[in-house]
């Protein structure tokens, strides 16, 4: 790491920059009173930018830091429904430059129907506001003597960048302005693909690889600023995922030296942003997996692995074109979406498998004479629950967002805002939370009631309703039944049935606009929030206790080891349930202590890929460190952990999430 980078890291960690921020609230209610929703959004964006004072940090070449905690607002503003969690068309904007994009919009505005005029006028207004703000920033950079930033801003965003620095400044500008447009959780998409031409340009012009590594590190440091202003569900959940590797539209591998350089930058910096994702497949060289394992060793919880062999065919099954499927990246956490083309809402809500099981067992167990009858009721319950989550999807209405529409293909062409299905894909996705808890519960019922008759239905129902109070031994018996994660055909087969029921129910629900509903294996925060409302379950879990995070064994499961775990979680045909949601495994930090350990963890990842797993996230964890951090947060300010689809500083998490992470390590490998 160069001295310059070390200094910039210090600047970031000192948090001195936060003192430059001020609070301001600009009320524009009167200005927007008689305006259309499109124009309201555009004017609010302009006002937000007008509130911002350019901040030029010492020695910084990237720019665009927030100066205001709160910006403009108007009466009735609803920031909750502003579109988010999608990947903008960075490539298009970088290739054209904003002036050209603007002139194309003006041309459209001049030849469109009246109906679309409002849209194009609003878009134009936002582009003017963005450019005007960039000009202000440029002049401030000049005044502050920030020579390189000034020079870059003479080129971008008006014109297309030529150098990697210009491209980085432009990209930061795009992200900054989208945040000012209140679009939260804006991931980077396939960063190594759209930035690579500028990297190669600079190499050709005699700039060394080391200098360019330093530049990318500067850029990565710069996106860690202001993360606290975009917290998502909690600090750290800001959606800044970045995808590396994968294939092009013809299916050729495109992992390059620049992709590797991005990994090196992340490895050196050890910061929570950007969150590195890696696309892999059967042919990924083991050396790359070994290098990625060195990243895992840092304990940041990335990279997250995404298996092209499963994800691409899975997306094709959901109606995405093969070309587009090959271009996939992840949204804020793990949801597979298509950059620039997808206005999918991949995280509408979660279908809670344990909730359905608990309800079905309570109301139907008594009348079921066989396990199969019970399972049929569960499948029916899943189908009914799917109708409910779809109703939630339909109730989600986006606010107009003309500035974001610039970055989503199809909108400018059709004159329709992203909020009005202007994008190419407008599908919905659902998490499927608590799959292991659900399968374990049914497997336990099968064993103790139907197969072995150890307990009566009445006894079990009574125990569940009393949250096992006075039923200790019964609970122990349930806990010793087969669990998902140990490669046991019976319980894994039940999980198979549950996932099939979820996929099949959603398959039939395509709507009149061609929108599809995507089943997934993620949990987001539902593994805690939804679990709080679920009563005791027959796997031995007590009322309110959390499920495993995403696609993982339950917390009470004593595991044989990572091999059996991988086998359990790769048995199902994952192309059928491909909204996203990783198998998450905790591996003790000592495993990584030498090259041999690193090599073997990489081979474990390879096994996961070869067996047909869709997504994997490994954590290197030392339980003792976590316990110490609970008691002495002041000693562990830099301790980073993976929470669900994102990494955060352990000491900043809510207590119940800290406890879940510690619990996860009880049976780790």
């Amino acid at each position, binding site marked *: 790491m160069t001295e310059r980078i070390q200094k910039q890291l210090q600047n970031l960690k000192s948090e001195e920059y936060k003192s430059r921020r001020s609070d301001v609230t600009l009320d524009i209610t009167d200005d927007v009173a008689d305006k259309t929703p499109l124009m309201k959004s555009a004017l609010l964006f302009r006002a937000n930018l007008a509130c911002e004072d350019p901040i030029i940090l010492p020695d910084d070449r990237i720019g665009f830091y927030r100066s205001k905690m709160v910006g403009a607002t108007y009466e009735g503003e609803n920031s909750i429904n502003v579109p988010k969690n999608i990947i903008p068309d960075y490539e298009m904007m970088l290739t054209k430059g904003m002036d050209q994009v603007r002139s194309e919009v003006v041309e459209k505005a001049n030849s469109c129907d009246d109906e679309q005029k409002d849209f194009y006028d609003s878009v134009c207004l936002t582009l003017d506001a963005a450019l005007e703000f960039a000009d202000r920033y440029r002049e401030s950079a000049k005044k502050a003597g920030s020579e390189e930033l000034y020079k870059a801003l003479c080129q971008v965003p008006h014109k297309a960048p030529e150098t990697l620095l210009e491209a980085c400044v432009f990209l930061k500008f795009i992200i900054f302005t989208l945040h000012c447009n209140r679009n939260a959780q804006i991931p980077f998409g396939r960063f190594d693909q759209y930035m690579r031409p500028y990297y190669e340009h600079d190499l050709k012009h005699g700039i060394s690889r080391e200098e360019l590594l330093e530049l990318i590190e500067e850029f990565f440091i710069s996106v860690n600023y202001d993360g606290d202003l975009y917290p998502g569900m909690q600090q750290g959940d800001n959606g800044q995922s970045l995808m590396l590797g994968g294939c092009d539209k013809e299916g050729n591998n495109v992992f390059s030296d620049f992709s590797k350089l991005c990994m090196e930058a992340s490895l050196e910096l050890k910061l929570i942003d950007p969150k590195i994702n890696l696309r892999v497949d059967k042919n990924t060289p083991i050396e790359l997996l070994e290098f990625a394992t060195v990243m895992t060793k840092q304990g940041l919880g990335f990279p997250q692995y995404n298996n092209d062999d499963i994800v691409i065919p899975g997306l094709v099954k959901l109606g995405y074109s093969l070309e587009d499927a090959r271009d996939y990246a992840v949204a804020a956490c793990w949801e597979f979406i298509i950059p620039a083309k997808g206005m999918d809402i991949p995280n509408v809500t979660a279908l809670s498998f344990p909730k359905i099981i608990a309800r079905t067992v309570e109301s139907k167990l008594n009348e079921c004479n066989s396990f199969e009858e019970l399972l049929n009721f569960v499948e029916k319950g899943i189908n009914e629950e799917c109708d409910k989550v779809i109703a939630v999807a339909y109730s989600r209405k986006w606010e107009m967002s003309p500035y974001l529409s610039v970055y989503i293909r199809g909108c400018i062409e059709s004159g329709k805002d992203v909020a009005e299905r202007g994008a190419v894909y407008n599908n919905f996705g659902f998490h499927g939370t608590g799959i292991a808890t659900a399968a374990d519960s049914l497997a336990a019922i099968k064993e103790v009631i139907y197969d072995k008759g150890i307990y009566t239905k009445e006894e079990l129902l009574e125990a569940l309703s009393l949250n096992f109070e006075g039923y*200790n*031994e019964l*609970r*122990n018996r349930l*806990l*010793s039944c087969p669990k998902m994660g140990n*490669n046991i055909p019976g319980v894994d087969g039940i999980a198979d049935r549950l996932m099939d029921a979820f996929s099949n129910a959603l398959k039939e629900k395509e709507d009149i606009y061609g929108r599809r509903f995507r089943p997934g294996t993620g949990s987001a925060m539902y593994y805690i929030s939804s679990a709080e409302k679920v009563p005791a379950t027959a796997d031995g879990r007590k009322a309110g206790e959390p499920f495993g995070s995403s696609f993982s064994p339950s917390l009470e499961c004593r595991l*044989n*080891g*990572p*091999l*059996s775990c*991988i*086998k359990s979680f790769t048995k199902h045909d994952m192309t059928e349930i491909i909204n996203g949601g990783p198998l998450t495994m905790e591996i003790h930090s000592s*495993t990584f202590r*030498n090259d*041999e*350990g690193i090599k*073997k*963890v990489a*081979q*474990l990842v*390879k*096994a996961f890929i*070869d*067996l047909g797993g869709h997504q994997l996230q490994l954590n290197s964890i030392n339980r003792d460190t976590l316990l110490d951090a609970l008691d002495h947060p002041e000693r562990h300010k830099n301790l980073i952990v993976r929470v669900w689809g994102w990494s955060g500083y352990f000491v900043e998490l809510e207590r119940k999430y800290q406890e879940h992470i510690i619990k996860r390590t009880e049976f780790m*490998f």
Partner: protein
Amino acid sequence: MKKAMVFSIEEFATYDGPGIRTTVFLKGCPLRCEWCHNPEGQSTKNQIIKSQNGCTGCGRCVKEARFVGKRIEYTERSIEVCPNRLLRYCGVWYTSEELVDKIGENADILNASGGGITFSGGEPLSQHEFLFECLKRLKNKTSRAIQTSGYCDSDVFKKILSETDYVLYDIKLVDEDAHIRYTGVSNKKILDNFKILVESGKEFVVRTPLIPGVTDTVENLNGIATLLAENQVSYIELLPYNSFAGGKYASVGMEYHPSFDEGLRPQPHIDIFEEKSIQVKIM
């Protein structure tokens, strides 16, 4: 068919031979090394062990226990009544067929990584008939390794070696008196079997635990280096003493009182080996 008691099956054992390995720990050991970190592997009897973490002291398990003098012996009922599932039998009986079926399930992953199965313990050779059956059943399925102290009769060792692909061989102390003092047995058989191992042409690695003041002395390491050099062995793995070694004693109702100073840093003396062109890896 022979049965044997297994006290642990560890998937993804990263330090028990090449590639990803599943290590089977057979219960029972004729040695009593002072620094033993697997006390539950010593006895051939099945014991109930109680994890100390998470115990609320509710007393249910004690109520169901037997007392042998002052010593507490938990019962099957103790296991059933613990609200936090902290008690379990540490051993499980397997026939060689059952065991091979179970560990064979992951052979695809093991083989793809160049790994396989490792039999450890305890001392796996103390249940050599069972071990032999397992090794034969695993032939041509996956790579078979044993991790051993080498303490057994030569005939037994030769027979096992004929069905083994890789050996992790412990040499702790070259001085016989010291060996008796710290492990309870003479090292004569061990040194004899080492010669057999070298002559067999099988792939193997020598391992020495670095116990402060016991095995990490200049004298002992010199002796080991000389032994290796005499046998044209050019590589050794040193395993520094782990201060967590005593961690499991309480849960099996045993006490840990090593006579050496646990606080001292183990000294690898790499130069001693390098002088004899022996490559050292510290694990």
